[in-house]
């Protein structure tokens, strides 16, 4: 509220002054001299003349600083750090906001410009100056860490914590205790079974595209405890993945992580087709090998890809090609 009032006032004065005309006035703050008489209780009502209206005096201000700025000044000295936008010290003809009939409002008395964060302290020369100032504290870049791959190899685990700075009575922030551990699954020494089990155990925490496992711990009160807990979870996951439990033998077709052609109906259909008109039993299907059968292998690959990668134009076309080669060899030749 106070900011708004101030703005309105400034705007009024700014409007009232003609351009390039600044006047200096001296305002008197003297109060009326105290009299030595006692106050009299006036029981009989007397006519009190109404107080005359306070005379309005124009507040006149200094001309804005931007008008006197040299063109080749060092901007980093004018705006050394982050601060709220100030129209008089930014020599730019900025406009912000919306007016239905007129041009967007100018920068003077414009609250919109004050609300948004500005990066006037982060001009390229300022950054350069800053870097050159702290350069003397830097050490040499370590050898053997030139690429991102080197980083993944030598530092497979990333631990992310956040510190918070406040100007409040307490410097503690509850969010500072959260620890995020990120690690590439390929960094672990896992076999096929262990990898699959690990992925199933961690569930959504594993990102298939980037191969990154993310563990976020925030259940303990301090950061140290959360970190320890995260590392403990990771260790437990690793060892649990490497053990093979008795009940894992009960895995069925619906539990498979991938489509395996040899265990499926598709193979039976193929064998029945090849052995036609003989009836095939399950044992025949099991013992049937397609090692020297190019057509069968192409079909197997196509079905596997179609069901594992999902159907789209590419996989369906590949499947079609394989099936046409299998069912209509005459067509494929022609």
């Amino acid at each position: 509220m106070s900011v708004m009032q101030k703005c309105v006032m400034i705007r009024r004065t700014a409007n009232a002054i003609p351009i390039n005309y600044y006047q200096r006035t001296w305002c008197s703050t003297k109060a009326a001299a105290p009299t030595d008489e006692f106050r009299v209780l006036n029981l009989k009502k007397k006519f009190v003349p109404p107080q005359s209206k306070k005379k309005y005096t124009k507040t006149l201000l200094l001309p804005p600083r931007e008008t006197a700025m040299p063109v080749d000044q060092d901007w980093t000295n004018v705006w050394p750090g982050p601060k709220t936008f100030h129209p008089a010290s930014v020599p730019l003809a900025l406009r912000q906001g919306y007016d239905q009939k007129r041009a967007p409002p100018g920068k003077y008395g414009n609250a919109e410009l004050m609300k948004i964060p500005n990066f006037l302290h982060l001009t390229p020369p300022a950054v350069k100056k800053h870097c050159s100032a702290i350069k003397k504290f830097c050490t040499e870049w370590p050898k053997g860490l030139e690429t991102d791959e080197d980083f993944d190899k030598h530092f497979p685990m990333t631990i992310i914590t956040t510190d918070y700075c406040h100007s409040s009575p307490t410097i503690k922030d509850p969010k500072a205790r959260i620890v995020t551990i990120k690690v590439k699954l390929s960094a672990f020494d896992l076999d096929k079974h262990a990898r699959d089990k690990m992925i199933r155990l961690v569930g959504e925490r594993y990102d298939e595209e980037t191969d990154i496992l993310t563990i976020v711990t925030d259940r303990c009160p301090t950061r140290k405890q959360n970190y320890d807990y995260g590392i403990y979870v990771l260790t437990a996951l690793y060892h649990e993945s490497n053990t093979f439990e008795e009940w894992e033998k009960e895995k069925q077709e619906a539990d498979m992580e991938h489509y395996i052609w040899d265990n499926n109906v598709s193979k039976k259909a193929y064998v029945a087709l090849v052995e036609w008109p003989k009836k095939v039993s399950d044992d025949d299907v099991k013992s049937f090998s397609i090692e020297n059968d190019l057509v069968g292998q192409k079909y197997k690959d196509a079905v596997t890809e179609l069901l594992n990668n999902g159907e789209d134009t590419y996989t369906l076309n590949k499947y079609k090609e394989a099936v046409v080669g299998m069912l209509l060899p005459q067509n494929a030749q022609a």
Partner: protein
Amino acid sequence: MRAYRRVCNYATAAIKQEAQYQIPTAARTDKTNPADHDHHDESKFYTIDPKTITSLFQMGGLPKPFTEQTQMFAETALMVRKPALEVIRGLKLADYQKPVIRYLLYGQTGSGKSLSLAHILHYAHNSKFILYHIPYVPIWLKYDRKEVNWSTTKNGLADIPLIAAQWLKHFKHQNEVLLNELNLTTSQDYVWSIRETTPKGTILNELITHGINRAKYACDCMDILLNELKAHCSNNKCKMLVAVDGFNAFFNEKTDLKTEDRVRVTPQQISMVQTGLSAVLSDWNNGAVVMVTSPRAALNTKRESHLPIYLCGRQGFEHIDPFIPVMVPELTTTEFNNMLDYYEEKRWLQKTGGRKELEFLTSRLPAELMARCASL
């Protein structure tokens, strides 16, 4: 003067229009037998004679809007398109001693799958295939106004007797001449009840007639008919084409149907569906199977993609694997222009121009184009 000028202007405009605007004619092919069609006839129209239409599609098979249009145009002209040609070529080349080859037509709604199937059916009809044609599966499973009974012969399955009888009528209508010619007979005795039996050696036509007259046994009759035909095909007595439109409806989660004891049945619980599923199995030879999956046949919650595995599910895929998927795409530029030429020739489209706009609005889908042009 003003009035005179106006009259003159109008008159000149009319003459001008007549002089410039010649009604285009669509490219047509003379070959009326689909067996003769090859890639030269692609994107051209061919006319099916009305007699064939009545014998093939009297009781369904062509989409309703298309049938209405053919009545308006007083002819049934189909465009020769690549997917149908591909399947017909496959039917010509196939080795009929091997198990049947299954084709699956898929594509967006309104891309012409059913009409491609009609083209294939016409070919099969001309080439003396027996047609085991299911016009559109969802009409079996939708609209709960049907009599649904639990089957007496098959445990846990439900019959839709009247619909089955209707289908038998359809089958008879399509194949009566051919069946009489081939003189196929039943291979064993069928006992329906104490008084009704079909002895071994009865002509299949009689079996079908029995199914139609005694609708109670129509579903069983359908099944028996299929088994008999499969056996005959495998014995080289005849050739059969199984055609199923809206195939993916077999694998929907639910139907609208309820039995008399108010139990909602799933598609898999219906004996006719089981017969249909058995028809598309490849345990017989001397024939072919053509299926059409359509997003419209799926439940309205499952129409996001037109790709076959999405529509049929894993179970459906495993049921028909290995099959040849044939994509029915939208019209090519040539086909699109020829289609519009045809509409202009028939004066269905009364204004020229705006083809780019029509192309954009309809994304070159023929069914959409038909609907869009109706008001122009």
